[in-house]
Structure formats: structure tokens, C-alpha cells
């Protein structure tokens, strides 16, 4: 067998094998893609609007956006002060209260109500700081939703939202 024939045969084998590999890989695409959120789930994850006017001072309400509970806390003066008068440098995840609310909207605290430890839902108005307390593994958050003690690594996350009027927000 001459060497050119050798090369030609090898080329054929390699071409066939690689084409088979490409085909197998392409067949995986739909199998993997089908696990991602489908079109109806994505569409249902569109922004929602929430009317703030019925929420009394000191009240926390839960709304759902993309299946996540969003806490809307209408904070009292005392809660706002407590949140602001903290030495930020001493916090596990240092962040001033002003970075966690919209400017001039101190009274409205909007949080994703999911503990940053392992995803349980913290209870409002509980724990040493009268903020949030996660019953699963004992993480304690203050009235700004910042982690103060316990296993959670970071502050409660903030959803994307904006004020469309003084009493309406759009989440998402």
C-alpha cells in the first residue's frame, strides 16, 4: 500500500469520524436547550407594577416576581434611623442604607426576600435588629436587609425596580 493511499484512507476515516462527532454534538443542543426556561416562562417574567398606596407605615408586604417573593417594607422613621445610624465598616457586607433604597424614598425598602445563605424566606420584624430573621439557619438581617450575624454571606439582594409615580413601582 502506497503512502498516498494511506493518507487518503486516513483522511476519509478522520472526516467520517469528525462528522459523526459534529452530528452527535448538534443532537445534544435541543436536549440541553429544552431545560432552559421556555417562552411562556420568560414572557411571564416580564416586569410587574405594584401600587404602594395601601401599604401602611410599618407594614411589609410580599409580592411575587419571577416566582421570587419581593418584600416591600414601608419603614417607620425609627427603622430608617436605625438603618442609617450604623457604622458601616463594622458590617459583614458593608453597604450604607442609602445604597439600598432609591434617593428620597427612604421609607420604601424593596428586597428580594430570599436568604442569601440557602434560599429560605426570612421572617420580617424578627431577630435582634427587628429586621429579618431566617428560621432555617439563623441568619439575622437589619431593617435595611443587611446581614448582621449568621451564615449568610451577603446582604439581601435588591430587585431591579423603579418608581413610576410616588405610589407605584415597576419591578423588573
Amino acid at each position: 500500500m502506497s503512502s498516498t493511499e494511506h493518507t487518503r484512507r486516513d483522511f476519509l476515516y478522520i472526516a467520517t469520524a469528525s462528522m459523526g462527532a459534529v452530528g452527535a454534538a448538534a443532537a445534544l443542543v435541543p436536549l440541553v436547550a429544552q431545560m432552559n426556561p421556555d417562552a411562556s416562562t420568560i414572557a411571564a417574567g416580564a416586569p410587574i407594577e405594584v401600587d404602594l398606596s395601601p401599604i401602611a407605615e410599618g407594614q411589609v408586604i410580599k409580592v411575587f416576581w419571577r416566582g421570587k417573593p419581593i418584600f416591600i417594607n414601608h419603614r417607620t422613621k425609627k427603622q430608617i434611623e436605625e438603618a442609617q445610624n450604623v457604622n458601616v465598616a463594622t458590617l459583614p457586607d458593608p453597604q450604607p442604607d442609602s445604597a439600598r433604597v432609591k434617593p428620597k424614598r427612604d421609607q420604601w425598602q424593596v428586597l428580594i426576600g430570599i436568604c442569601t445563605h440557602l434560599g429560605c424566606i426570612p421572617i420580617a420584624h424578627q431577630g435582634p435588629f427587628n429586621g429579618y430573621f431566617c428560621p432555617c439557619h439563623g441568619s439575622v438581617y437589619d431593617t435595611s436587609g443587611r446581614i448582621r450575624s449568621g451564615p449568610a454571606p451577603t446582604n439581601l439582594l435588591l430587585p431591579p425596580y423603579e418608581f413610576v409615580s410616588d405610589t407605584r413601582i415597576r419591578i423588573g
Partner: protein
Amino acid sequence: MSGHPTYQPQNAFMKWMEARLPIAGLIYSSFVVYPTPRNLNYWWTFGGILTFMLAVQLVTGIVLAMHYTPHVDHAFNSVEHIMRDVNYGWLLRYVHANGASMFFLAAYIHMFRGMYYGSYKEPREVLWILGVILLLLMIMTGFMGYVLPWGQMSFWAATVITNLFSAIPIFGDPIVTWLWGGYSVGNPTLNRFYSLHYLLPFVIVGVVVLHVWALHVVGQNNPAGIEPRQESDTVAFTPYATIKDGFFLTVFLILFAWFVFYVPNYLGHPDNYIPANPAVTPTHIVPEWYYLPFYAILRAVPNKLGGVALLGASIVILAFLPWLDTSKVRSARYRPRYRFFFWLFFAACVGLGWLGSKPAEGVYVYAARVLTTYYFAHFLVVLPLLGRYERTLPLPNSITDDVLKRGSAAAVIAFAVALAGLVGLSSPAAAAEADTPPKLRWSFAGPFGKFDRAQLQRGFKVYREVCQTCHGLALLSFRNLAQPGGPGFTTAQAQAVAGEYDVPGEPDDQGEVKERKGRLADRFPPPFKNDNQARARYNGVPPDLSVIIKARGYERGFPWFILDLFTGYQEHGADYMAALLTGYADPPAGTNAPPGTFYNKYFPGHFLAMPAPLSDNRITYDDDTKPTADQLARDVTAFLAWAAEPHMEARKRIGLQVMIFLIVFAGLLYFTKKKVWKSVEAH
């Protein structure tokens, strides 16, 4: 057979492993050095094809189960959810649905091959019986899978097939109630069918392992029907059989892909796109094509128990084939008389399949009786006697002799054509005596067809201004109007459309549900609250139009239904709809329309509750198109065709890529196979 090399582990880990679990050695001896007769023709590749199809059905089935809801209220819509919303859901479902047909096609070819070459004879009886068990399991699995979409055919198949058991004396009725888990086919039935449909494929996998095990004990039969005697009679499984199997599997996949991408509903029935309705049986119910011969046998007997018993016997008798065939010679090549009767039997099976698709009346029933008689006579009379009286031809001395004397198979093509015909027989007979709708030219017909955006937009206008008063579009969301491959609205336009509809909102603080403006994610709200309201208002329940184009059709008749398979013409539902919308006329003299109904040339039964909905200039178009009644009908039909199959354009586009890939890959595999086999072909 002389001993072939055993697996020698090369590295330390494999040596360690081999001493504890010799799985590499098992694979090596079973699928690498395993000797296979060198004269196997392409009919022997169907074992591998079946294994592949089983894997395809398992993988797509497991994936579909992630999105399907086994509940009578949600099953139909969850299947449509898969078709519309799940990423590549339409592909996965069409692969699974057509995969079942391809699986049966391959299984039948595999069985006929076994019959032709006498593969069931000593020492392969157990191998054959395991195959019959596999067929039975496939039949059960396929049937239960067909029930899951919960369309009209699903529901009535479940009803009819479970009622087969009611033929059993004394215990029949309690058994049927037990199967249903209720007093009729209902939610418990659907749930258990789902559970069993998920279970049985794994049972099939188990029996396949036994089947392959038995095969590897007795070795493969071959076209000469004689055992290998010398080294040169066999070749190693890898690479010789593997590459040959791989090549023909790819050829088979081309056929499979044609069905999936271009005629995905060809083998199904339009009625199964109508949600299950326990109050109405479809006028002509037939099973899927692969059950038709058995169905014909069932109906050939004018006695309930007799029909069911014969149906069961027609499958069970296969298990006795190794003893009913008394000839010592295996292959039909050396049995000229048997060869004749084999093809007669094959023709009887195809004939029974055809009769199974026809209404059970008149001459069809008599023909079915004749063929049923032959079906059983073949096993009970012909085969036992042939073995005794047939003069067989001399067998070759060895497989090597056989190979060197003859070229490769040629009868192959006739067989393939016959099988293609069998596949083509699946279409049901015409329902009632309605006129045949004219075949129209649709921009979206054929392998390269696309929707005409402007036409879809006009059609949507017709729907909103005319049809919507009575007909819902429940499976469609406003966002669909802006998705690729659709009417081409912008997201803003779709949002504006949504805003013109009122949909029920969330309960407010007082618990009151108020209507709110529609959003992109919302579905089109229904025009009536429930069926009773619709009956009170419209003297009937106007059907939802979401999948109406796929839920309607008409009999194209021979030879068109076969040609449609090759041209990819699937627009029967569209033809029917356009014809129906403009098919109103005065009833023929002597017939009177029942009160509240109108005469239509194309409606099965002719009298329908919907008055002629369209007329010239009924609405005005925004573009220059003249709004004649014909034009309105075509436009709204095109819109509804898109609504029924919103991913059609993606399907055909991906189909083209897959086809090109498969054809090139098959070519490469062919030449690779030639290269690999070159060394053995000479001696």
C-alpha cells in the same frame, strides 16, 4: 468457531478494574471481536437500527415527560405547550411521535427478515420468542403513548382497546373497570397509562439485553442460513459490522428526518388535534398504521370474543413459528416454494393493513376475512406441510463459498417499495360524503414553504373582525404575534393588540377579580365563559381555532396520498378550511336544512350551525388587497395555519440542515465502509 482474541488490559487501572468488574472485556468480546457472518446483507442492520430507535424514544420521551402534564384538563394543552413554548419542543415531540412509527417500521422489517431467512429455527427459538415478547411490549407501550396527548383519537383508542378485555367471559367487566380505575376512561386511566408508558420502555431495554445475549450465544443467522464453519466465514463485529450498521442507520435516519421535518403529521390523524370529548366519537376511528393489520383481524370476526381472541392469537402464533415451520433448511433462498408463500404472507399482511384503514363494511369485511384466514393458514397449514413436501435447493458448502459465488442482494428494492406502500396506507377513509375541497396554492406548502407575512396580518384582521365573536384562540398568546416565523408584528404592535383585550386580573384587596388590559404574556381571552353559555348563544359550541388547521383534513385518495408523502404536501387542513368558509350554497332540491343550520358543500354531513361568515368587502384591508370573500377565506386560513404550527419555518429550516448533514454523512460512511470491507471482499 475458533477462539477469538480476548481482551488484554493495557494499563494498570484497566487491569485492576478487569479483575473486579470485567465490563471492558465483555464489551470487547461482544461488540469488537465478536465474529459475525461475512455475508450479512443490509437487512441485518435493522437490529442496530432498532437499538438506536429505542434509545431515541427513551431520550426524547424522558425529555418530553419533563414538560407534559398527565391530567385530563391539562394533557392536551401541555402537549401544545411543548409544541409552542418549550425550546425545540416541537422537534422533540415530532421525533418521539414519528420515532414510534419508525421503530415499528424497523421492527416489522426485522421480523420479516427473520421469517424470510428462517432466523427463528433451531438453535434460535428463544431468541425469536424474545423478539415476539418485544413486539408485544412495543404494542402496549405505543398504545399507551398514543393516549397521552388526550386528543379525540387518544381518548377513543383508550376506550376501544380497554374494551377488548370486556370480551372475556364473566371477568370482563370487572377487569375493564380495574383497568380504567373508574366507570369510564378518565383521569385515573390517563395517569396510569402515563406511569406505564414510562415504565415499559425500561422493560423493553431489559428484554433487549436478553435478546442480544441470546443472539451472542447462538450467533447470527445469515442469508445462506448455514452456520459458519471456518475462520474465513466470519469477520470481526468491529469494524466490519459496526461501519455497515452505521451507514445504513444513517440512510434510515434520512427517511426518519423526512417525516419529522417535512411531513410530521402524515402518519397521524387530524382528529387527534381535537381535545378528547367523551360525548362524541370520531366518525371513523382507526389505530396508527402499525396496528392496522391486527385491527383488520379484529374486525373481520362478527363476534366480540372471537375477534379479540383472533387478534391475540395473531400475535401469539408468532411465538410458535419455530415449531410450525418444519423445514430443516433456513433460508428462503434455497426454498423456492416457501419463497412464494412468504411473499404471499407478506402481501396478506399489507392487505390486512390496508383493510384496517377502511371502514368495516361491505366488501372490505369479506376481504379481511379471506386475508385473516390466509394469515393463520400460513402458520397452521402451509408451513407445517411445506417442510414435508418442499424440494429444497442444494445449500452452499460454506458462507465463504456463498459470498464468492453471488453478488449482493437485489430483491431488497422490491421489499423496500412494498414497505413504503405499507406506510402509505395509513390514511383513514373519507368521512361522510362531502365534496372534496380543491387543492389551493399556499405559500407555506412544501419543503421550502414560508408564511406570507402580509397575508398573516390580513388573516389576523379577519379573525379579529369576524371569527373572534364566536371562536377562541386559546392556545395563542399575544407575544406569539411578534415571534419569528409569524405575522411579523413588532413587539410594540403586539403589545398594542394585547392592550385592546380585557383579561381577568389578580384578585384585588377586597378579593374581587377585575378585568385588566391584556399583556404580551396573556393568552387570547375566550369569547364565552363555558360551553353552556356558548350553546345558549350560538346554538352550538364554536370550536377553538388554535389548532383547527391541523385538526381538519380530507381524504386525498389514491395515488395522491402517496405522492403527498414525497412532495411534503400537508395543507389538507388549510384546503378544507378555505373551502368550507366559502362553500355555502342552497341545499339540493328535496333536502331541507334542519332549523338553525346552513348547507355547506364541504362540511361532512353538509349542515352546520355556522352561517356563512365571509362575504365580499366584509372588512377593509389596510393594503391594496381586494377583500373578496375568497381572499378573506385564504388569508384567515393562512393565519390559522400559522397559529396551528407557529414554528413551521424553523422546522423546515432546521430540516434542510439536517437533511444535508445526513446525506453527506451517509456518503462518507458509504466510502468508509467500502474501504473497510475491501480487504475481506477478495478472499
